[in-house]
């Protein structure tokens, strides 16, 4: 069922709250469930609904604005903008993300997944399927 886009926050997760919010938003943006022109809730509204500090949501919005996905609007939240092709590849950032992926792959292996299963799951994720 393709309902309205949602964001979820796991209080027990070791991932910081602002990262979880940004990750969910980025997934919606990459999978085009949020399109250019769409408005996101104001920071205060989303923070109230999730029960987190306003700064947590502001940080998540700022992160995605820096990545070129959002335009921040004063008192009106944020709007999704047409993102231009990624700027010059940030080698350091890519290395960092690949390193994180390596850690996750190792964890999956130790949890019993074969490398073939990991590759297939990764392929599905890259195509936009849910984990």
């Amino acid at each position, binding site marked *: 069922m393709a309902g309205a*886009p*949602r964001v*979820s926050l796991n*209080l027990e997760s070791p991932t910081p709250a602002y990262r979880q919010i940004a990750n969910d938003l980025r997934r919606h943006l990459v999978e085009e469930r949020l399109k250019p022109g769409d408005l996101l809730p104001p920071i205060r*509204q989303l*923070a109230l609904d999730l*029960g987190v500090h*306003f700064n947590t949501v502001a940080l998540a919005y700022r992160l995605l604005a820096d990545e070129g996905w959002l335009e921040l609007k004063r008192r009106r939240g944020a709007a999704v903008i047409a993102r231009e092709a990624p700027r010059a590849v940030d080698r350091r950032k890519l290395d960092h993300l690949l390193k994180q992926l390596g850690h996750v792959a190792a964890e999956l292996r130790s949890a019993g997944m074969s490398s073939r299963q990991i590759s297939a799951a990764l392929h599905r994720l890259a195509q936009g399927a849910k984990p």
Partner: protein
Amino acid sequence: MTSASWFLMLVVAVHAFVFHVLPRLSRPDILFAVTVSEAFVAGEGRRLVFRYRTIVWIGAAAALAISLLLSATRPDSVWQALPVAGNVVVASTAWYLAHRKARAHAVPPSDVRVASLVPRDSSLPGGALFAAGPFAILLAAALVVYTYRGDGPDGADASNPFGLLELAAVQVAIMLTIAVTMVGRSRQIAVDGPAAAAEQRFRRVNALVPVLVGYLGAIAMSAMTVASMPAFANTLGGVVWYLPQLAFMLFGLGVASWMFRVGQGGQRAVSPAARRDVHGDATPDHAWRVGGMYYVNANDPAMWVENRVGLGYTLNLGNWRAWLLIVGMILAFMVVSRLVF
């Protein structure tokens, strides 16, 4: 029996009725201010409600019997108010005991919070122009007072002729602050679908109430001020006293019956399938104090949260903005009262 005795007995009966329906007003999975499963509400919870209601009505019956006795023996005594107070104490104790029993069946709060990414309408119901209406009414009344204040045997009353209007302006400002913060600083619990729509409607009606109370206050105070002027004293008559009160009562009854029908958060008007994803009211049980009467949670950014005892919203007393509102209200009335009277 005196009319006061009849009135006090009526108060006892109304109290008992309110306490009787109280458990039914909460969200479907909140019982006696505790988040429980709907299965518990339908099973063991029913027995808990039955026991609670039995105590409430036994207390009310005892209070009525004592009222009758006192009206026969001491018809003019202040002791006649005792059964009313006693009835409230008994019913509140029954509620508290039921609350403690329900806590043993509390559902642990979820570690996952979900919110919609679709912005919702957090503007004032009716818009800013509609909200400014009471001020326009008060301003018009002030102009009338200013124009006609010299038309009388001794001119205007010795006290401030604008006094009631100033007091009403403060009341309207407070009501608007309540309405604005209620739509802008309360949490949406249902994420989407009919449950979310019902909740949003419930919130907006709740925020409309203080706006309309502001209107009624402005109309009543304006009418009283104008009617008390010598130039209009014989033309307006008693209608200015009774009409606003009648309107106020009808409005209150209408809102109360609607809220009673849809239940807390509008969720009783939604099918169980539509509110499948909605659990509790997104507030932790431990933050509710005195049997669920008060909510105190400094970690919750919400200024208003849904009541757990009764319908509508209540302030989060752990939020500094809530205290700002409370202290501001008290100070504003104190200052204006001192200036006016």
